């Protein structure tokens, strides 16, 4: 039972932070299918940096957890510039830009991983091996039934994500930047008429989405295998998109969606295990999160609405 909560949370939270990235981008009016690529590329840069730093300074890679997270954010952000430039400056179709970025990310990171391993370590390995993340348990609270599991075997990144998510909420809803950002996604003309540069706002929004996705990707890398390899591209970026649409582009409902995914996923695995069915049946339980989502959407979708200007190429002259 505890496993459901522990595993569910450690899956849901990285997904959540990627989804928040998506919310930023989409709230500003830029469709973002590139989350998958951002999280992968971010994780790549994070892992690469950790490995290279460990190699250059002889540091134990175990201690470079936070360094990896930091660089993953930088890497995700750096890569997201492509999406920003393509869809804002070059007025490219945002969907194609997103899809292209995913294709590029997979191609580039697998290619570069082997290339860098060969160059630096002389062995063209297809993965960067990281130290595993610490996990901690808050004694005392951890003993409370059910709730206690939330405080058991926690990855440090879970705490970081919650803090950042809170900050992301504040930035989006309380500051002028957030106000302008949301307005850009609803009616960019109004923002433009107010003398604010829509492109700059959207540019920042996309970069933030890259940054947060990079963080999410790195967390996945740590929580799943403590490796970086092309296995990072498991479609979680797309799942994050589903979550944020499910959450109607709002932060708290999106968190709910992510938790739903997380718990249904770990719960599915748990049920399959405890029912002692042949392993093929595990597959059947794995559909749980997706079927649940669809069912819930049937009830909750009526009032859902994307940001009005989402995906539209902003052209001052056009009305």
């Amino acid at each position: 039972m505890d496993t459901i909560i522990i595993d569910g949370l450690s899956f849901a939270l990285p997904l959540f932070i990627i989804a928040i990235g998506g919310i930023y981008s989409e709230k500003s009016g830029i469709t973002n299918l590139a989350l998958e690529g951002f999280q992968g590329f971010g994780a790549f840069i994070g892992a690469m940096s950790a490995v290279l730093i460990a190699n250059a300074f002889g540091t134990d890679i175990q201690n470079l957890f936070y360094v990896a997270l930091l660089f993953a954010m930088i890497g995700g952000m750096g890569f997201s510039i492509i999406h920003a430039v393509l869809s804002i400056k070059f007025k490219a179709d945002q969907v194609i830009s997103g899809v292209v970025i995913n294709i590029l990310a997979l191609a580039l990171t697998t290619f570069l991983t082997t290339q860098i391993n060969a160059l630096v370590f002389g062995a063209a390995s297809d993965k960067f091996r990281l130290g595993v993340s610490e996990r901690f348990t808050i004694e005392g609270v951890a003993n409370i039934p059910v709730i206690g599991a939330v405080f058991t075997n926690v990855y440090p990144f879970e705490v970081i994500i919650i803090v950042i998510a809170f900050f992301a909420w504040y930035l989006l809803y309380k500051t002028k930047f957030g106000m302008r950002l949301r307005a850009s996604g609803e009616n960019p003309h109004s923002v433009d008429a107010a003398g604010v540069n829509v492109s700059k706002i959207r540019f920042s929004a996309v970069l933030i989405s890259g940054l947060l996705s990079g963080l999410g990707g790195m967390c996945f890398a740590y929580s799943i295998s403590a490796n970086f390899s092309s296995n990072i591209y498991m479609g979680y970026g797309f799942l994050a998109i589903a979550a944020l649409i499910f959450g109607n582009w709002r932060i708290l409902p999106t968190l709910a969606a992510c938790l739903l995914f997380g718990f249904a996923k770990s719960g599915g695995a748990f049920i399959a295990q405890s029912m002692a069915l042949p392993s093929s049946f595990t597959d059947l339980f794995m559909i749980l999160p997706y079927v649940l989502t669809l069912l819930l959407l049937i009830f909750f979708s009526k009032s859902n609405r994307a940001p009005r200007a989402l995906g539209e190429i902003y052209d001052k002259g056009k009305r």
Partner: protein
Amino acid sequence: MSDYIVEMKHITKRFPGIVANDDVSIGIKKGEIFALLGENGAGKSTLMSILGGMYEPDEGEIYIRGEKVQISSPNHAAKLNIGMVHQHFKLVSDYTITENIILGVEPMKKFAGLFPYVDIRNANRKIEELSKNFGLEVDPTKKIADLTVSMQQRVEILKVLYREAEILIFDEPTAVLTPQEIEFLLGIIEGLRNGGKTIILITHKLEEIKKVADRCAVLNKGNLVDVLDVKETSTKQMAQLMVGREVNFESAKAPAVMKEEVLKVDHLTVKNEDGFEVVKDVSFTIHSGEIFAIAGVADNGQVEIADAIAGLTKVSGGKVLLQGKDITNESIRNRTEMGISYIPEDRQSFGLVLDFDLSTNLALKQYYREPFASKGILSKEEFEQFGSKLIDKYDIRSGQGIKTQVRSMSGGNQQKAIIAREIELQSPLMIFVQPTRGVDIGAIENIHKMMIQQRDQGKAILLVSLELDEIMNVADTIGVIYNGQLQKIASSESLTTNEVGEYMMGAKHE
């Protein structure tokens, strides 16, 4: 130094296929109301968009307060104390009034001396004050989505005032307002002028110019025709200058010859999305050869009546009969086939597919049937022929003829295209909702002529308009609506403008 606060010299602006402004020079004095007049597509909005920093001119110079400037952005314009109230409002409908007004110039505060946040509360107070000062009362915490059009316009004006604009540009501000609201707005504009602001007013309504403006520039096909002193010029003269011919304001029309009943609306009730009754138990009939007008202040249910008859809105009670047949539950397509033409209020989101070309839009109601399509296959030639024919017949102007993307056409010409398409259907019942909104007087005259012509050919016409003059002018029968209920139905001769106005305000009812 000149005594002009704004000078635009030799401004030329080209768009693909068209010269929107051709060597236009105007000067505007501080503290005057300067009007811009011209047919649809004459280049008024373009000229003012240049002043507002939306476009950069291809040629020409701009001087503000005697200094040469290159206005690179709306922000730059705002810094020069130029503010523009756009024809199409630029508001975020999910945001409150305050949020919309302060967007871009947000007042900030710090939480715990560290985290800056937008100080909405303070802004609310400030805006409430500002709105009182200028007589534009609003509730700053209301969302735009919940506001009427005229309220939204107030917000636009407040936005400009909040930024302390000295030069205010109004692009067709009255097009969407009721007579009372227009009256009010013109009062505000005069008040602003008297307070020392300089006003540029674009409008198609000559009385408005006559009433408030000091001087008036007339544009025609991108060229400046003349700048007039309003006091010394009659509206007739203005019209003539603008259109290039004499314009008849009073449409001459023969008395109606009403024949059989075409439309019967029987105890109609319509609910909006929130389940609120916006049309309550409305009944009326329209006959062949009759123009039936619904008069009323905006948002009193008249548009919903039209939508319900055309099938765009569900009916929650009552019946609609067309030529005796119950069509209450017919599909939109069937209603069209059975004989309804419909000119919708919102031409851009309902009347047209903006990314289709003109000829396609002209055939939007007929594309599926002979001769445009046979056995499901479309005939390009038919589309083109039909399009060319209508462009000629209705004088629809655009950059690239039938191939023009409708999005790039001027609003007035978009409207003409819709009217052309709907009249060509030759339906027994024609519904015109706000057919002349934003259309120049020459075109208005034409539209009115066409309506009367159709009536005389035995069509039944339902006219929904916010403009009392228009209604008094063309209608045979008038139904006045207030709060979703028809207050009065009577022949137009039996009613005076004043009486109708009173019914419209709900002040008088039977």
